[in-house]
């Protein structure tokens, strides 16, 4: 037995049989003249309802639709209800869906048609109209069922599509959220270290790698406090971390330190927080930190400069006044020296007077340097040739270097470059660095000092390198005023150097180990742009 189609199944359900088909065919012939009137009434009714009317446009279309409605009514009362019939009705149903006719109007419109057809049947057939009316009800219900099917198909399709869209959106949103999370953690300019309940590192972001010098896979699984060289019994960070891990409370921001892979100490503003429900991968606490070493150095230096500016006026006045008694002392020493040479020429007395003279000169030098530092004049910037500046300074240092058996190499750029600088102050900077380099190399029994100049895209780079013993400590505050490791140094040379370079909107830094010390200066090629 061939399987029943949906239409056959519906016909069986409403019990539309051969007898009904005959009755309907007969009724169709009777009612035919009445059908245009029904179509007119139908569309008049639609005009009264905004939402229903909205699907129509223009009277011409209504006329066409009225003709279609007549054709449909003729077909409904045609007595032939086969698969082709079903397909035609299904097409009409789909058109209703496509033009957006609301379902409620289709149902109520069908009621209007039903009432009109039943009245016509009653009018023409009188008391014999019963079976015909039943057949009409059946065929019209069949129509409704088929047309509603089109709505149902459309709804199902729309719901499925919405569900598909939702699934796609949700997947994309999840992927996005994860990506955002990963890049937020990775790209944050903040140290983020995730810890498990035992305080072992489970997460170590890029900034943590950068500041600490450790690669992620070196530290994952290791106790955090060990890695950053913190003694948990005494250090603030250790205590706070223990508190967070045990009580799951958040700690505020506090300053601490961190030992890098190379053993340097960095200042870090830490904050330790219980991770709570935020993460699942075994991380119970997050230590976040900001490397404030440079900030702190800058702050310290700014504070120092402020202090110096405050006492600058007083101190500068005092320094100037010191020059008068120094002048008197110097003249008297010159006189004494001459008198001793003339009269007794005793070597020990002469020696003593010369020492006094040297000490006075040293004091005078200190006064000059201090005034340079405390009351600096802004640099007078003029286009300056890098090659000329370097050659000039090398010429000045060469004799000292030669007598100290230090080889001085002047590594010039392949082509000259001009940049805005105060030539006198630049000379002072380079002289200072070269003399320091020569002195420290000479103390080692000789060696090589290199002055190197290069042009960068936006800056001029000047390096002063020596193979001397290096700075006593990599963290030594060599650019601070009155810090000196040299016998007889004023401790102002590098402070002045630093100030001159920063007055040029440039930077200076140093790297040092035994056998190689290198000062690196960067000066802008254009002053307006800054560095």
């Amino acid at each position: 037995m061939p399987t029943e189609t949906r239409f056959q199944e519906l016909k069986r359900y409403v019990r539309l049989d051969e007898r009904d088909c005959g009755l309907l065919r007969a009724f169709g012939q009777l009612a035919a003249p009445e059908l245009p009137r029904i179509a007119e009434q139908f569309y008049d009714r639609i005009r009264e309802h905004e939402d229903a009317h909205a699907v129509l446009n223009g009277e011409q279309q209504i006329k066409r639709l009225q003709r279609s409605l007549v054709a449909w009514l003729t077909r409904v009362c045609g007595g032939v209800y086969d698969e082709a019939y079903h397909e035609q009705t299904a097409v009409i149903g789909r058109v209703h869906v496509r033009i957006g006719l609301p379902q409620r109007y289709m149902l109520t419109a069908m009621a209007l048609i039903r009432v009109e057809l039943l009245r016509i049947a009653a009018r023409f057939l009188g008391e014999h109209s019963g079976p015909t009316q039943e057949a009409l009800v059946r065929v019209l219900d069949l129509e409704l069922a088929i047309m509603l099917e089109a709505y149902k198909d459309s709804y199902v399709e729309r719901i499925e599509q919405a569900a598909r869209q939702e699934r796609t959106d949700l997947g994309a949103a999840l992927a996005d959220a994860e990506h955002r999370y990963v890049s937020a953690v990775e790209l944050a300019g903040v140290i983020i270290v995730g810890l498990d309940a035992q305080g072992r590192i489970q997460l170590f972001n890029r900034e943590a790698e950068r500041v600490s010098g450790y690669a992620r896979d070196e530290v994952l699984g290791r106790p955090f406090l060990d890695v950053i060289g913190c003694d948990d019994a005494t250090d603030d960070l250790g205590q706070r971390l223990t508190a967070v891990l045990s009580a799951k409370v958040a700690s505020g921001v506090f300053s601490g330190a961190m030992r890098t892979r190379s053993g340097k100490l960095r200042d870090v503003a830490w904050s330790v927080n219980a991770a709570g429900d935020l993460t699942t991968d075994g991380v119970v606490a997050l230590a976040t930190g900001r490397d404030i070493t440079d900030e702190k150095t800058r702050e310290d230096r700014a504070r120092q400069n402020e202090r110096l500016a405050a006492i600058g006026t007083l101190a500068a006045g005092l320094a100037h006044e010191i020059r008068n008694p120094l002048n008197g002392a110097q003249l008297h020493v010159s006189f004494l020296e001459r008198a001793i040479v003339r009269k007794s020429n005793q070597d020990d007395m002469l020696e003593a007077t010369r020492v006094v003279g040297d000490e006075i000169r040293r004091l005078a030098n200190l006064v000059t340097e201090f005034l340079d530092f405390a009351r600096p004049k802004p640099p007078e910037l003029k286009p300056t040739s890098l090659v000329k500046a370097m050659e000039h300074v090398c010429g000045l240092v060469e004799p000292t270097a030669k007598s100290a058996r230090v080889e001085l190499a002047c590594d010039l750029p392949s082509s000259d470059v001009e940049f805005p600088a105060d030539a006198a102050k630049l000379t002072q900077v380079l002289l200072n660095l070269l003399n320091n380099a020569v002195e420290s190399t000479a103390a080692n029994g000789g060696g090589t000092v290199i002055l190197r100049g290069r042009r960068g895209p936006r800056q001029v780079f000047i390096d002063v390198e020596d193979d001397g013993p290096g700075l006593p400590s990599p963290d030594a505050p060599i650019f601070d005023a009155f810090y000196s490791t040299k016998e007889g140094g004023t401790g102002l040379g590098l402070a002045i150097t630093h100030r001159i370079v920063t007055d040029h909107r440039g930077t200076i830094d140093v790297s040092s180990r035994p056998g190689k010390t290198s000062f690196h200066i960067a000066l802008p090629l254009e002053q307006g742009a800054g560095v």
Partner: protein
Amino acid sequence: MSDSERPRSDEVLLVDIDVRSSRRLARLLEDDGFNVQVLCDGASAISRLARAPLPGTLITELAVPLTDGESVARFARSQDPEMQIVVLTRHPHLMNAASFPSPAPVILTKPLEYPRLLELLRERQVEKTHASGLFLRSNSGW
């Protein structure tokens, strides 16, 4: 009489309020063959510079009582464009040498290095001797 024809004075006029140091400096200079007059204020320096014979050299501190050393130096320059002028100061930046009528004075920062000063004065003595030599030769018809 033009400048090159006038015989130069060995006299040094020294102006500074620090009399004790000035006297010591004067002793050193006299020892080296100069003739030194010491004054301790700007007003008496200007009145000295108002009459002939003018000193060959003026050494003045910038900060002196009764008018300042720069005024003394400017007055001296107006009296004699050839006079050697040395300004001594604790504040080298206070002296505006650029606006000074040429030739500009030499500015020395205290404490004074005596050998440096002596070198300067001797350079001028050599120039002077050279100039007098020419004068003598041309006048004596050599």
